[in-house]
């Protein structure tokens, strides 16, 4: 399958390229940018005039809700939603049911994901068995099964000795740990930032020290072990400042924030909107501004969707009783574009937080547009306006703080591994069966794309 993407504005943060170029795709790879191979004959031509062509997005936190939580969303629905959002690689945290703490579970998830259209799925392994924070998992085995990193997801790590040993053991195999800093005692029963809104409405709180105390422990242990640690979803100004200093001291750490935290603050919880009940909690406007500053000065490496589809039954509840989280994979790009517009950041810099940087953190060959690299591409119309609504979201999670609001920027095509897994002008889903014969890849009348094995 050879695809020519013609006349698009190619934006590649890794090389700094931002210019109109043709992109040539063959056999799952990019074979030319600007100039294609002399013998290139396209099977399909995509007119990308007016569209931005960027590396497919790499999302560091997507809950696919499989195995075990299929009532919330299914692998198929969320894989499709990712493609709709321009995501071509994702990391999924291990907080499934059962948690991803055994190689068999990881292999099953990877196998199922591989035979569906949609992004490349990189499961994050559980750091401890059952995420109980007591016994280490078989990290080397899990790594062979496909886990690139290990995490407690949102489960607490109460025992600091286990954390120290987990770092030492992971360092033995040079495996990274992804940790979300939160002290379980200081966060106990909390749902909101300990600020002016909680004072007014009486929400039980998760104070900033819940983040900084845990962060301090992690950073001291990293100093000791030199284990590679990725800090997931920082939320506070004080926390970001600690990471800034630790990076300055040369610690092997990276960090990300959730895209909603780039925009929203505790003020958005003032009318009890359960869709703004997020973990970590939305904090003060000063904290929100510090997140933006941390992105601009490179303290924060990546923006993730922190996608958490929650069904209506678990959201149509009083704020503190609703399950936390927001649907995110289809908002990751438009909300990042919104941030870039608001701050005047050039597109080629803003997109780095969704492509080049998270690919580097995940350690995968993605996030770059260059000859010889995998053909994972996102083509979006930067000016297209759309309204966030349940019917406009492909994810089964309709829980968005932005429901009813307008977004600017919409994905038109998503190529994954050289396959056109999504195009907006037609439904684009089909399952691969192992014995499927390579056939006509596109049935234009139905708009169906059949993925070839």
């Amino acid at each position, binding site marked *: 399958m050879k695809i020519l993407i013609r006349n698009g504005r190619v934006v590649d943060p890794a090389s700094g390229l931002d210019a109109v170029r043709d992109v040539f795709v063959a056999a799952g790879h990019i074979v030319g940018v600007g100039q294609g191979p002399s013998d290139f004959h396209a099977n399909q031509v995509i007119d990308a005039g007016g569209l931005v062509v960027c590396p497919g997005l790499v999302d560091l936190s997507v809950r696919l809700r499989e195995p075990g939580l299929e009532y919330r969303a299914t692998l198929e629905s969320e894989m499709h939603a990712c493609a709709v959002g321009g995501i071509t690689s994702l990391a999924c945290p291990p907080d499934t049911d059962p948690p991803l703490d055994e190689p068999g579970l990881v292999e099953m998830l990877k196998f199922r994901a591989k035979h569906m259209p949609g992004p490349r799925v990189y499961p994050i392994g559980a750091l401890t068995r059952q995420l109980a924070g007591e016994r280490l998992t078989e990290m080397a085995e899990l790594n062979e099964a496909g886990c690139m990193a290990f995490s407690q997801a949102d489960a607490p790590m109460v025992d600091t000795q286990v954390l120290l040993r987990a770092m030492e053991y992971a360092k033995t195999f040079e495996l990274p740990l992804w940790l979300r800093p939160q002290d379980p005692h200081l966060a106990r029963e909390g749902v909101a930032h300990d600020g002016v809104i909680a004072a007014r*409405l009486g929400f039980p709180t998760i*104070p900033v020290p819940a983040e900084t105390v845990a962060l301090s422990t992690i950073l001291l242990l990293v100093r000791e072990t030199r284990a590679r640690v990725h800090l997931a979803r920082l939320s506070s100004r004080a926390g970001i400042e600690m990471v800034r200093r630790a990076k300055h001291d040369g610690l092997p750490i990276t960090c990300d924030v959730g895209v909603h935290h780039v925009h929203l603050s505790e003020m958005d919880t003032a009318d009890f909107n359960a869709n703004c009940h997020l973990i970590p909690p939305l904090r003060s406007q000063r904290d929100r501004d510090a997140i933006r500053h941390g992105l601009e000065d490179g303290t924060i490496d990546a923006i993730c969707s922190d996608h958490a589809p929650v069904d209506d039954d678990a959201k149509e509840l009083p704020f503190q009783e609703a399950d936390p989280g927001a649907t995110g994979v289809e908002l990751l790009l438009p909300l990042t574009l919104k941030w870039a517009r608001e701050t005047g950041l050039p597109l080629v810099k803003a997109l780095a937080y969704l492509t080049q940087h998270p690919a580097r953190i995940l350690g995968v060959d993605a996030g770059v547009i260059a000859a010889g690299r995998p053909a994972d591409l996102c083509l979006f119309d930067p000016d297209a306006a759309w309204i966030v609504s349940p019917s406009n979201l492909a994810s089964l999670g309709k829980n968005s703080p932005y429901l009813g609001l307008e977004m600017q920027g919409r994905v038109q095509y998503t190529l994954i591994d050289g396959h056109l897994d999504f195009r907006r002008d037609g439904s684009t889903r089909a399952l691969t069966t192992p014995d499927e014969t390579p056939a006509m890849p596109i049935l234009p009348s139905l708009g169906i794309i059949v993925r070839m094995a």
Partner: protein
Amino acid sequence: MSANPQLTDDGRLRHLLTLEGLPARILTQILDTAASFLTVSEAERDVKKVPLLRGKAIFNIFFENSTRTRTTFEIAAKRLSADVVNLNINASSQSKGETLLDTVANLSAMQADMFIVRHAAAGASHLIARHVAPHIHVINAGDGRCAHPTQGLLDMFTLRHYKGAFHNLRVAIVGDVLHSRVARSQIHALTTLGCPEVRVVAPKTLLPRDVENLGVHVFHKMSEGIRDVDAVLMLRLQNERMRGSRLPSAGEYYKHWGLTPDKLKLAKPDAIVMHPGPMNRGVEIDSAVADGMQSVILSQVTFGIAVRMAVMSLLAGSGATGAQS
């Protein structure tokens, strides 16, 4: 934030969910209406009923235990000639897994006109108000630590009754402000009605962070906090908070924050003492104060019925908003 969900487009009261954000004219209207109901409740009157809510079905939906508040709402509704149904949800649907909104939808289908809701989570009555049909009114009878607007109003009624006005008052709210929906409603009402100095007095463990943003002055010592005040509004200390990580013991709390005759001498000589009940005698308040000359605690209970009658009649009485739809 969206427009005030408590008001109709033309600025009249549709639900009573919180006192925050309600204009002073509405608070005053409720207090004035309550004053006119006070005579209806007077003991010497033979017939204690007025027919304002005749034929209306009022559902007391209590997801949290309460005897006093539920009873005063029930009495208030009956004096307005409404039909009252009491539902203690702890014991019924919720334990069978029915959701809050399903419960409300079912009760709506029984031709309810008004829901009086108590719930352990902040914003529960807001959620219900967002989902009920336009002719149904919701009164928040306490949601988590967030609001208890009728209690706040009856406290304002009591203050106005004894002190005449708000613009020259110095008021101290003493006790567990952090966990208190009563304190939050009192603070919003006092600041809205123009009280120039609202104080909170409590140990740091019982105050919300950033509480100053609510427009109050923070004191940790009783000797400073109640000096020269016109009214002392005591808060109830929940039993489970008397020992643990917020307070070491009820005894130490009483020593420092319990209202004793000696401490009360620091307030103005004519200062009044209020308490939302039920009291913990010997923990937050000394019996000599609770039963003393300056205590108006039992008046609060009486006024509470008039205030609740006022709120219900303004919401659903003939000529009130929504009643015609």
